[in-house]
């Protein structure tokens, strides 16, 4: 028995195997960042109205392609997740007693997200397909 084996350097960066709340928190940050990056673009393209409807139309028309449409699907899903998870967090903030039931609440939030995401994705993917064919 008792053999001292090889030594290995590094092997960092294994994630902490935390609560589901840790992963939902990371997703909340990622989706939040994605949404705010969109907002920057959105503010710029909306401001183009100041240069007249032609300028606005010209730029917004560039969005009518399948790739941007897929990005829009991503945006909708990010917003949906961020909104639902935000409501979950708010719920726990105002009713600390619910903290005990965070796991079922988290699962319900995930289920709501999936339920809303499926038809959204179906509709938008069909539009993407139409755009791609056109």
């Amino acid at each position: 028995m008792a053999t001292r084996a090889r030594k290995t350097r590094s092997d960092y960066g294994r994630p902490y195997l935390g609560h589901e709340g840790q992963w939902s928190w990371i997703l909340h940050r990622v989706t939040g960042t994605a949404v705010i990056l969109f907002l920057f673009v959105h503010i710029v393209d909306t401001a183009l109205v100041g240069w007249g409807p032609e300028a606005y139309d010209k730029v917004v028309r560039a969005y009518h392609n399948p790739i941007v449409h897929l990005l829009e699907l991503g945006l909708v899903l990010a917003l949906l997740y961020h909104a639902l998870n935000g409501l979950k967090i708010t719920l726990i903030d105002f009713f600390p007693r619910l903290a005990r039931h965070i796991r079922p609440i988290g699962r319900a939030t995930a289920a709501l997200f999936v339920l809303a995401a499926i038809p959204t994705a179906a509709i938008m993917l069909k539009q993407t397909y139409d755009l791609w064919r056109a």
Partner: protein
Amino acid sequence: MTTPGEILQTSDRREVRARPDRITLEVVIRRFNPERGEDSWWDEFRVECDPLERLVEVLHQIKWYQDGTLAFRRSCAHGICGSDAMLINGRNQLACKVLAQDVAPTVRIEPIRGLPVLKDLIVDLEPFLQGYRSVLPYLINESGEPERERLQSPEERARYDDTTKCILCAACTTSCPVFWGDEGYVGPAAIVNAHRFIFDSRDEAADERMRILSDKTGVFRCRTTFNCTDACPRGIEVTKAIQEVKRAILFERF
């Protein structure tokens, strides 16, 4: 003669399993020695032990018979002193409350995260304790000494019962992603100990503590990831306690 694992019958006809066989546990430990350099490294040890042996005893086997340079904190070894909180297989746990069979065949042990490592599994707890001290974790009552005990109803006592269980092992605070990123955050353990006095009917400094905790290093840094609640070896509902303090600050201070 019984063989290990054999099913035996007791005199009252219950079935029990004979004392289980010994197992070989592979223990992978993140080592660090400031005198050897700035990098940490992993060491692997093989320890033959009883499956019901606690991990702290497995570490003793290593330290006493294989590598005397291994450094780790432990004191009571019975889950009360809170000395041996470690990152065990990706989760903060007390080495004295984890059995070899729970982690077999391989266990990876690292120092708890978010605090400076001094050597091997020993971290500098000072930032953690600073957060603890900052919330005035002691009874404050300036109304003069009472003639008898300060009486408290069972309901008033129950209000903060959960948070009296803290043993300051730092498992919660060092499981918190916010604390990893911001050492200024007082951390879950400090808030738990503030909660213990804020909701104590005999204490008079709740306002002062809530003022401290409404600061930008206080309770509102919490993002309710619930890692702390999972990590607490005493089963304290840490996130719930933090949320109660947040709510108290929200509704009583403003």
